[in-house]
């Protein structure tokens, strides 16, 4: 009845499991809970990276690590070098705020930390959702290992 253009393609029937299983596309990453450690000049702020996913490529379906800004910089560097994606930008490093003789707390100011937090959250969600980034070991280390081993061997992850 139909021409070749509109010919019907026989398709495989889905199993019940395939039909009803929750789709394996769930990925949520939150950057929360900024804590400033140390005193005086030796202070630094880090953030909690909370991840929940059911993507098969990630080994852990839930993970919780703490990362600081320089860790994000490290990740960005690794991805720019190894993956083929155009890596989005990080929120600013803000040198001005790190200079002495400021009337406020510089980079440990609440408002600044909050803005940075938002920027970092946007960054990591964009990056982690990209299939090419998901193949890089550096991303997995960043998201799911407690400590980043800067001497790791870069490489690709093959999904199960």
């Amino acid at each position, binding site marked *: *009845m*139909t021409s070749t253009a*509109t010919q*019907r393609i026989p398709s495989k029937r889905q199993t*019940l499991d395939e*039909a009803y299983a929750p789709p394996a596309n769930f990925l949520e990453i939150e950057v929360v809970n900024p804590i400033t450690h140390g005193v005086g000049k030796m202070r630094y702020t880090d953030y909690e990276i909370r991840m929940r996913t059911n993507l098969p490529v990630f080994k852990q379906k839930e993970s919780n690590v703490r990362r600081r800004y320089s860790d994000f910089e490290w990740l960005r560097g690794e991805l720019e070098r190894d993956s083929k994606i155009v890596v989005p930008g990080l929120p600013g490093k803000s040198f001005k705020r790190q200079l002495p003789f400021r009337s406020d707390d510089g980079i440990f100011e609440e408002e600044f930390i909050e803005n940075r937090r938002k920027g970092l959250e946007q960054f990591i969600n964009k990056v982690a959702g990209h299939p090419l980034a998901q193949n890089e070991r550096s991303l997995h280390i960043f998201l799911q290992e407690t400590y980043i081993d800067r001497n790791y061997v870069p490489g690709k992850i093959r999904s199960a």
Partner: protein
Amino acid sequence: MTMTDATSIEQERALDAASKVVKAEAFEMKRSLDKGKRMDALKHASAMLAELKSSLLTPKYYYRLYVDVIQELNHLESFLKDELEKELKQETIAELYEQVQYAQSIIPRMYLMITMGVIYMKLFPKMKSELLNDLVEMTRGVQHPLRGLFLRHYLLGVSKSLLPDLPEDAQLAIPGSGTVRDSIDFIKLNFSEMNKLWVRMQHQGPSREKEKRERERMELRILVGTNLVRLAELQTLTQDVYVTEVLPSILEQVVSCRDPISQEYLMDCVIQVFADEFHLATLNEFLASCKELAQEVHIKNVLIALIERISTYVSHPDTPGISEDIRLFEIFSSQAEGLIQSRSDMPPEDIVSLHVTLVSLAVRCYRDKLEYANTVFASLANNLQDKNVDNVEQYSAVGKELLRVLRIPVDEYKDALRVALLTDYARAMAPLNYRGRCTAASYILQDMIQMDTPLKTEEDVDAICLLIDCLLTDQPDQPADTPETEEFTDEQDLVASMVHLVQVDDKDAQFLLLNGLRKRFGAGGKWRIRQTLPPIIFSLYQLILAYPAPEGDDSARDAKLKKMFMCVMGTIGALVNSGELSQLPYNLYLEGAIVANRVSFEEKAVVVYELLSKALSVLEDEIADSRERLSALAVVTNTLIKIDCLPNDNWEPLASQVILAGAKMFKKPDQVRALCSSSYLYWKGRVDGSAEPMRDGGRVCDVLKKAVKIASQCMEPLVQQQLLIHLLNHYMHLYEDGCDKITPEILNELISRTRDASVQIEPSQEADNIEKHLQHTLQYIREAREKHADLAEHLQI
């Protein structure tokens, strides 16, 4: 402005924008159709349908857009159908069906394909089988949950009148037009795809919006349910096919999806839409599936809906009896029990709800099998005991359900004695608190009174008293202020009404029952017996009066009657001593004396005397208020006048006692009035042996003379005047009744005294009234002269 306000404003804006486009394109579409430019019309239709691709709208708003678009599509469909019907060339419509499939975007493509397909099938029914299959398969192209659900809903809607409904093995007049087999396959596939999309919605979006998503899903449930409705509407869907294929496939989808929202809704849907006979034939399979549902599903609701449906069906008068093989009660009660055991966190009100349904089933469908209903009550009591459910307030969730379950057999049997046969019924009442138990018991009593359920044996009485035990005696959990509450009074009224339900033909048996009941009521304490014992006494009086007359010398009968009076006296005594009452027992004693007087039995005089003297003791000891005493004396006078069985030796002391009591009253005016009324004793009183009242004028006058003397001692002029006029009236009355000891001189004296006094009294409102009374009296006496010559001669007025 709240979050939801902001969102709904955005939604309204988006909907508005989309609706504008729809309107504009629909207008162009219609214009093209009118001009006969079909392709242009389809292009505009496609542009209109593109608005349904929107991802901006939530289900509520998408639905509104959908409704607008469908309306325009319907117009397109009917216009083209009418046009094509005129020429009726298959190539034309086949070509249209083909052409719409070249639409670039899938949403417009699918909607147009369905629309053309429907026209095609309406004009050429031989294509139905092929096209229905094609359409339901091709709609798989849209996998987005919201858009897919509405698309399939459209498909289901417009195909409703086209679904073939002929038996599978029918000889088709038009080959290819399909049988019910095609319809079943079509709906099954549509249903499973729609459920899949509906469940998939659960996983769309961030996890913090879970509740919002669940609410939106609930709004869309009817879209999925319509498939089941459509299945149920197929007339030629046989029970066999339902049992072997349709239900199993539905249940397979329901169980596999593992989604609580879908499961709970669809199980309920199945119960509601399919025929009762189908349910009876698939009970075991259905219930087995219930066990496999997710933990969050409220299975209790599903089970209750099913049992309710089946109960109504089976108990309906038009239903043919179900086969003995289907042991409904056993199946459902074991299911319910299993459910309760498996869900340890089931709240108590849910446990009771399940039992409500089971009792309803047992009582409505197995009226004769009392043991079924009883089993349910036993299991309920046990379950509640296990969960330590106690002291339940009647308006709490548990309380309300508990009262419901207790009322069901009362309402259905309409025979409280039958309810009493359920030995575990009382145990099921126990978890309620005091007020709750009383409410439940009152309900039973009210039913008995309404139905006029007679109590004929001691067993009957015992059984009912067991059920209403909380009303009969003080309970350990009874609040301290209970006797003062309105409920208490109403409840005791109900208990009192029970007495009138004791109806046995044999009078001796009746007495036995009344006596037994009396003993039970007697244990109720001061506040209860005040209300519950009087009816017993009145029933005993009724019984005594109705006792058959003696045949010859019947000492057994005499003994029985005496015993009854003993019972009466004991009961009235209890009212005096424990009940701490005075007026009521007093009147009851006097009533008893009158009753005894009317019945003939040997020791009648003894009994009458006893009752009267007891009454006088009560008057003496308990009735202190002077107004009450005055009226009490009048009552006892009237009673004594009615009594005619006392020998003189007994009558005299009683009469003198009454007179004395009157003379001893505290206030002098009261003494005068009392003596006036009791003077009638010597006039109208009658002793045993004499046929006539004694009419002892001498003694009457003695009494009245004393009264006059006392009246004269009253210091207040107004009071004295009042009393003297009162006495004058009395004298006059007795004179006219034939008392010869009352002479005109006596009258004259009183007349002159009152006249003299009336001049000296200071004027006032009260004085005027008294004067009027005097004048009326004097006028009456004047007119009486015409009837009595004696008066006419000697009266000085």
